């Protein structure tokens, strides 16, 4: 029999031990640690270091922090950030939970249109929503003037209320999507039992359903909070004299440019502390509240009385109309003749004609950076997911923690960190395409890792072991068996990453130089210069680019909108 045996002679122990270090997975593990250290840990380490460095010798290392907490100009921004983020969180929950409940439980009409609107709102860039509201409700906004003619003053879109309003509309989809999927995991028998014991519908919801939804609600709340707390575009457009922390970081960073951004670093550390705290809180809460129930028979659709059905539908439609209004407005106004910030009622393609000459470079930049970062995310993310799932141990856990930490690092903080780290020769990368790609890559890495890891967990190990057993080494097995089996998950991860990366603004604002400007930067510049027509045309292009991959994802890959969160 064994004439074709390929077993080699057993090598010496020492040789084996050294050989193992150069095996595929140990090498990949080291590579992953190096990459995440260089792109994430080192930048964060550097801004922390900078935040403790005094400007004058002999002063306390806490000087910068002491200054922050003693000067109202600075500490007000932190308070403001908390005010707008907490308000937006509460409002998004109040608006989103009933909407999700009605759409999931009542047979109201056009449910798939509603879900499409939620998705569109969710993926559209927040800063586009903000300036769209300026077109509508700004000082010379369309609605402001319209109602003004009848003597009805509309509330101002600027300052804290405007920011809270836009944040609520922008981020309630987090709540809607998470609560919808949470509702799916509740078994009908739970509700039946409560109703059977005499609870009305509202009492049942409050006493039985809502507690079971707590994991979804807390997660959604914290995601809204973090998104609102770290957003730069909206306060930049709407803030005026109302300053929040990210705005201050950006301002200080621009002021310090050329020198050491000591203050920007200090503020960044504070921002990072808040987001990290929120992330840890979320992990703790979801571990605490997870009931790990899965519904055998999920909650069924109800057929309420017509009046109730109408009322629920009216509520949901109003919310959706307001949520989609800024996007519709962008698309429409992109086809209107603009006179600076004032749009006329004349249809024209002039805006598109004007961007035709200038868009090619930023468009090319956007597509190039996004695609490169997305591919890197897919490759590195899947490799890291494999290490975390298939090779558990201390190093795998460390990698997992690092990757999850990158989830907590806001774009603007990462931007400042990368500039601080890669500003000086021999690694002078500021202003290059590479540094933007690095930022996009590390920001989206946790999402790629998470999506690959969760499908890898569902994949039996046996198939991979069969490959190894048949003589394929670890690398070959990964390429020929693991990757093909994960291909759908990887592809949907790629589409999601692309959609989310293409609209990045805050890190890009810090890291771009004129020649590496992206479409979102162009939009931002046009908005600042008051060219709303051109901005709308660019915005429409960006929305299209964002939504196309999702269209593929939902129509051809059988995913639903819950894949987004």
């Amino acid at each position, binding site marked *: *029999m*064994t*004439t*074709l*045996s*390929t*077993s*080699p*002679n*057993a*090598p010496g*122990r020492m040789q*084996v031990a050294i050989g193992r270090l150069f*095996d595929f997975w140990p090498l990949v593990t080291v590579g992953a640690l190096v990459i995440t250290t260089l792109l994430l840990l080192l930048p964060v380490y550097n801004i922390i270091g900078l935040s403790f460095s005094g400007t004058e010798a002999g002063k306390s290392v806490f000087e910068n922090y002491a200054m922050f907490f003693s000067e109202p100009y600075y500490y007000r921004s932190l308070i403001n950030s908390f005010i707008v983020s907490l308000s937006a969180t509460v409002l998004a929950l109040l608006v989103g939970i009933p909407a999700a409940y009605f759409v999931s439980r009542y047979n109201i009409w056009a449910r798939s249109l509603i879900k499409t609107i939620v998705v569109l709102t969710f993926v559209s860039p927040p800063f586009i929503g903000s300036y769209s509201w300026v077109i509508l409700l700004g000082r010379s906004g369309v609605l402001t003037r319209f109602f003004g003619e009848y003597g009805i003053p509309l509330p101002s879109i600027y300052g804290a209320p405007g920011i809270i309003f836009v944040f609520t509309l922008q981020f309630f989809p987090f709540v809607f999507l998470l609560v919808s999927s949470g509702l799916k995991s509740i078994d009908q028998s739970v509700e039946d039992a409560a109703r059977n014991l005499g609870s009305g519908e509202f009492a049942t919801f409050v006493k039985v359903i809502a507690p079971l939804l707590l994991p979804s609600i807390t997660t959604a709340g914290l995601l809204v909070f973090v998104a609102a707390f770290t957003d730069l575009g909206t306060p930049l457009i709407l803030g005026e004299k109302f300053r929040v922390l990210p705005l201050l970081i950006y301002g200080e960073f621009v002021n310090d440019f050329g020198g050491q951004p000591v203050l920007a670093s200090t503020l960044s550390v504070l921002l990072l502390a808040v987001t990290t705290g929120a992330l840890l809180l979320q992990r703790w809460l979801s571990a605490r509240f997870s009931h790990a129930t899965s519904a055998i028979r999920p909650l069924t659709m109800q057929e309420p009385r017509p009046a109730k059905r109408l009322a629920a539908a009216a509520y949901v439609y109003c919310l959706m109309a307001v949520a989609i209004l800024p996007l519709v407005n962008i698309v429409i106004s992109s086809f209107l003749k603009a006179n600076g910030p004032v749009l006329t009622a004349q249809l024209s393609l002039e805006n598109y004609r004007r961007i035709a000459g200038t868009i090619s470079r930023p468009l090319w930049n956007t597509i190039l950076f996004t695609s490169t970062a997305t591919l890197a995310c897919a490759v590195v993310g899947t490799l890291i997911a494999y290490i975390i799932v298939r090779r558990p141990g201390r190093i795998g856990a460390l990698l997992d923690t690092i990757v999850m930490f990158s989830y907590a690092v806001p774009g603007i903080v990462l931007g400042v960190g990368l500039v601080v780290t890669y500003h000086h020769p021999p690694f002078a990368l500021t202003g290059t395409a590479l540094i933007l790609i690095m930022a996009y890559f590390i920001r989206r890495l946790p999402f790629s890792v998470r999506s690959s890891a969760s499908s890898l967990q569902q994949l*039996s190990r*046996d*198939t991979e*072991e*069969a*490959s*190894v*057993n*048949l*003589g*394929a*080494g*670890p690398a*070959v*097995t990964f390429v020929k*068996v693991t990757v*093909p*089996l994960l291909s759908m998950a990887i592809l949907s991860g790629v589409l999601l990453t692309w959609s989310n990366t293409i609209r990045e603004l805050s890190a890009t604002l810090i890291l771009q130089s004129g020649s590496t400007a992206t479409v979102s930067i162009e939009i931002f510049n046009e908005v600042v210069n008051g060219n709303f027509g051109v901005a709308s045309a660019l915005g429409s292009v960006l929305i299209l680019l964002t939504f196309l991959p999702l269209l593929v994802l939902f129509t051809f890959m059988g995913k639903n909108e819950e894949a987004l969160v």
Partner: protein
Amino acid sequence: MTTSVSIDSVTKRFGDSTAVDNVSFDIAKGEFFTLLGSSGCGKTTLLRMVAGFMRQTSGNIRFDGKIIDDVPPHQRNTGMVFQNYAIFPHLTVFDNVAYGLRARRRGKAEIDREVKRMLELVRLDHLTHRRPRELSGGQQQRVVLARAMVIQPDVLLMDEPLSNLDTEMRIHLRSEIRSLQRQIGITTIYVTHDQEEALLMSDRIAVMSRGRIEQLDVPHKIYAEPKTLFVAGFIGENNLLPGTVIARDADGSSLIELPGGHRVRGMGGVDAAGQPCLVSIRPQDIDLGAPGGARETGIDGTVTDIQFLGGTVKLLVEIGADKPITVSLQGRRGMDMPEAGSPLRLDVPLQAVRTFKPEARA
């Protein structure tokens, strides 16, 4: 017979628990060797150590005399068949079977020839270009078998390969696997918890319990001469009765008293007079004798239940112990069917009675 695989004092611990406990045995070239035991006894763990997916805590594994502990799994040249098939769902039948040959960088002509030959052997040559999802469970399992055998492994490892199939397919495939194995002459370690499968297919069986090998022998010896109480209880049906050794004879047999005052002669691990023991008697080894009459050995009882199973007839006989004794008779044309309630005398031949130390069961 030359040794193909040796397991030498192999132990595997997971934290505090010991999954495989100091196991040693040699497997001859071409032998069909079965690990039999109930769930959690360490069969899979042992098999995975042979395949190289896990490393033993201590001990050595040798292929053809060479220690292979440091050889990574993809270089061990074993062929593994997994319980849940582990077929490559994205590859056709042909590509599944060709996988190992391609990993070995064989030429295209050779791959074509070998894969075809193997697919003919497992009678799947008409499905060469099908995708796995278009195959039945039995067909998938045959693909996996062909895939593992085509690389001519030093040893074929099968982990409960039939447990996911329905009974009919299982019975069909087990004879097919056995005849293929003989035809190719491949050394095989087969894991199962199905004793019928083990008895039918194996050259030798190792009965495992809690990480240890209880008995290693050819199937009929395992069945007829269980060495431990565990084996006696695990393999086939057995009456287990508490008893006491009364006397020991010169021929090595001992006289045993059972509850109810009945006496039998038997052989086994307990032979000192006055010691308590457990006695095992197979139902089909008990003969019906004429009731009454005073003899030294024999069991008197009353029939409480009769189960007619066609080929065999089972009698439950109350003998004054805490449970009735089962007697199995061959169902024959014109046999005298005992009646429920009637008295019976049971004769048990010396060879059919085996004694064990009672604490061995704990």
